[in-house]
């Protein structure tokens, strides 16, 4: 798509603006759908019906919510650090949005086809932490500060398992470019990294337990990185009121939420790209192609988003020390073993 556009408008800034638009549109649409889905899924789990009046089955409720949020008063606490307070939500969103740049949507479209794609996403999504810390500090509210400290500790701790799990996929596929990683897995469900990748049967069977564990850990760490139950400590409602976004209202609050939902998809899509073949069809050549690619990756991403929603409305929340314990003493050692084993299997 990049080449196609280049042939029309040449090498100019306009090209990059146009290339940047689809992820943004996608995030906005996706957030609308997910807000509605989350409400509906949680409601049905809880014997309720949720929105029913705004459109059929409350379909237009997210739109109404946005209209409400736009009209809400945008309050800033008097004692807050106003500059940082205003900047924080946008920084959080920027971090997430920047991650979308290297996320492939189909074999033909990726925001920026860089060779260090996986590495780039892991690195750039850390900006989110800066935003959260900024929000917590600038609010000048002790609960917010707690939330910010927790989120910083948490996101950084869980970057390690995430990076290690991605490393396993990278070791198998031999590339950091997400398009390459996906192409490597093309050709049906059994070529996916989670099932051992496109290797001879014996090697595949040897790899399978390790890749599967790595995949599960990546998913768990992903939930922790987006701060959702059971890892929603930074905004633990019953403990820290709302954590770092306690003092936010109106559109700034909405942007935090938008960033959270976008992040949900980001981690889901990365997991889908490196372990589940991204945009490649599970049926080999059947239903494959650039447009089907969009369908498949969004489907896979949504499946994991749905799983996250499901988990959120089922499990209680961990405590801070248990959260750290999970990351440093359970997930990380497991992954070291996996990395070592996968390396060994690949060499042999």
């Amino acid at each position, binding site marked *: 798509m990049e080449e196609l556009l280049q042939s029309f408008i040449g090498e100019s800034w306009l090209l990059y603006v146009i290339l940047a638009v689809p992820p943004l549109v996608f995030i906005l649409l996706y957030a609308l759908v997910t807000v509605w889905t989350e409400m509906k899924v*949680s409601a049905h*789990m*809880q*014997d*309720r019906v949720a929105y029913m009046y705004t459109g059929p089955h409350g379909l237009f409720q997210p739109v109404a919510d946005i209209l409400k949020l736009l009209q809400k008063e945008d309050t800033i606490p008097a*004692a*807050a*650090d106003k500059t*940082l307070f205003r900047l924080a939500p946008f920084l959080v969103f920027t971090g997430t949005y920047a991650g979308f740049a290297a996320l492939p949507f189909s074999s033909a479209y990726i925001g920026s086809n860089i060779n260090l794609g996986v590495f780039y996403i892991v690195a750039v999504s850390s900006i989110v932490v800066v935003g959260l810390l900024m929000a917590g*500090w*600038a609010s*000048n*509210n*002790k*609960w917010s500060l*707690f939330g910010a400290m927790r989120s910083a500790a948490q996101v950084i701790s869980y970057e390690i398992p995430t990076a290690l799990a991605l490393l396993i996929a990278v070791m198998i596929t031999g590339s950091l470019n997400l398009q390459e990683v996906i192409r490597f897995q093309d050709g049906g469900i059994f070529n996916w990294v989670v099932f051992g990748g496109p290797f001879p049967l014996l090697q595949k069977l040897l790899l399978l337990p390790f890749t599967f564990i790595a995949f599960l850990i990546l998913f768990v760490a992903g939930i922790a990185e987006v701060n959702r*139950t*059971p890892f*929603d*400590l930074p905004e*633990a*409602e*019953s*403990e*820290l*009121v709302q954590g770092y976004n306690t003092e936010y209202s109106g559109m700034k609050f909405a942007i935090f939420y938008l960033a959270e939902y976008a992040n949900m998809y980001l981690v889901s899509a990365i997991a889908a790209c490196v372990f589940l073949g991204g945009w490649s069809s599970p049926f080999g050549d059947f239903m494959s192609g650039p447009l089907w690619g969009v369908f498949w990756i969004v489907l896979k991403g949504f499946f994991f988003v749905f799983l996250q929603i499901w988990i959120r*409305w*089922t*499990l*209680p*929340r*961990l*405590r*801070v*020390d*248990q959260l750290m314990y999970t990351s440093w003493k359970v997930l990380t050692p497991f992954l070291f073993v996996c990395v070592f084993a996968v390396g060994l299997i690949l060499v042999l």
Partner: protein
Amino acid sequence: MIDSKTLPTNYVTKPEKRATSTGRSLRTDEMIINMGPQHPSTHGVLRLEIVVDGEIVVDVIPHIGYLHRCFEKHAEHMTNYQQVIPYADRMDYLSSMSNDWAYALTVERLLKLEVPQRVEYIRVIMAELQRIASHLIAVGTYAIDMGAFTPFLWCFRDRERILDLFEMTCGARLLYNYIWVGGVSHDLPAGFVEKAKDFCKDFRTTLKEVHDVLTYNEIFVKRTANVGVLPKDVAVNYSCSGPMLRGSGVDWDLRRDDPYGVYGKFEWGVQIGKGTKGTVGDCWDRYMVRMNEMEESTKIVEQAIAWLPEGNVQSAIPKRIRPEAGEMYARTESPRGELGFYVISDGTASPYRVKGRAPAFVNLSVLPEISKGAMIADLVAIVGSVDIVLGEVDR
């Protein structure tokens, strides 16, 4: 850079030097935080002034009184003993029936009055349904405190059915004014018995669901077991009562040990904490005592419905009661524990002094004792497991 202006003013309480691993000293401070009066997990307007060292709670100072409505002063100014009952309703607004009964029982004992058998049975049915409703809220909100939202709504779904039963009996859903001195205000309506039976049958399924999704959930167990351990002797010394006391392994239930009503006729068991998942007296034990008590209450309701006698629902007493001068303290087992009223009569139609001995008030006073050294998340777990209702704490 952020200048010092933006630092919260009372940030620094106790400067303290601490050695770090690099050998250089790093100054760390304790921080005072107000948890409440507006905080999601203080279950009302409780304010906890907590001193924290990072995430660790160094000290807790509860401040109460934000919901003080002068119950005792009001009661003294009533012109009739019956008029106090609506006020008693509002003490513990999640278990009004039990409050009514406790007050009515005190005045009846002051009057040396026997109520008809049917009234006793109706009161038992109401109080036990109320106990289930109240424990459902306790368990549901506890789930929310732990971050699990779904069990909360399941609990509320079933509580709603109990409230429907109360509504068809006396028209109110929260503050009933149903149990009066000398009887109850109305007889049970047609269809009540069937609906209550249906409820008891279905309710066990809910209990099982909550057990499945919450009680034995590994995260929930990790969060509550060995947290906020209340030893037996401390519990007794602080006069804790109800699930709080039984959770600490003390086999004490006023329904059995200081009998009132017709509880002696039913078959049921007192539930105590056994330390299944941790230490005896931890949050999980208190939670589990509540869960088990709901099951026992269901048994009592079923038996009481089956044996419900016919008869009057009001004994013949004058409209304006004038007990002879004297005093009486009577206690009952409300969902939260020992609910007692101390009533002094001077022979006139209005009580001379009414003191409500609120279980939540007493149970809350042990909080600083058991929450020192816990983490903030544990503090939330402990406050939730005490199951306070601020209406009762502040009266």
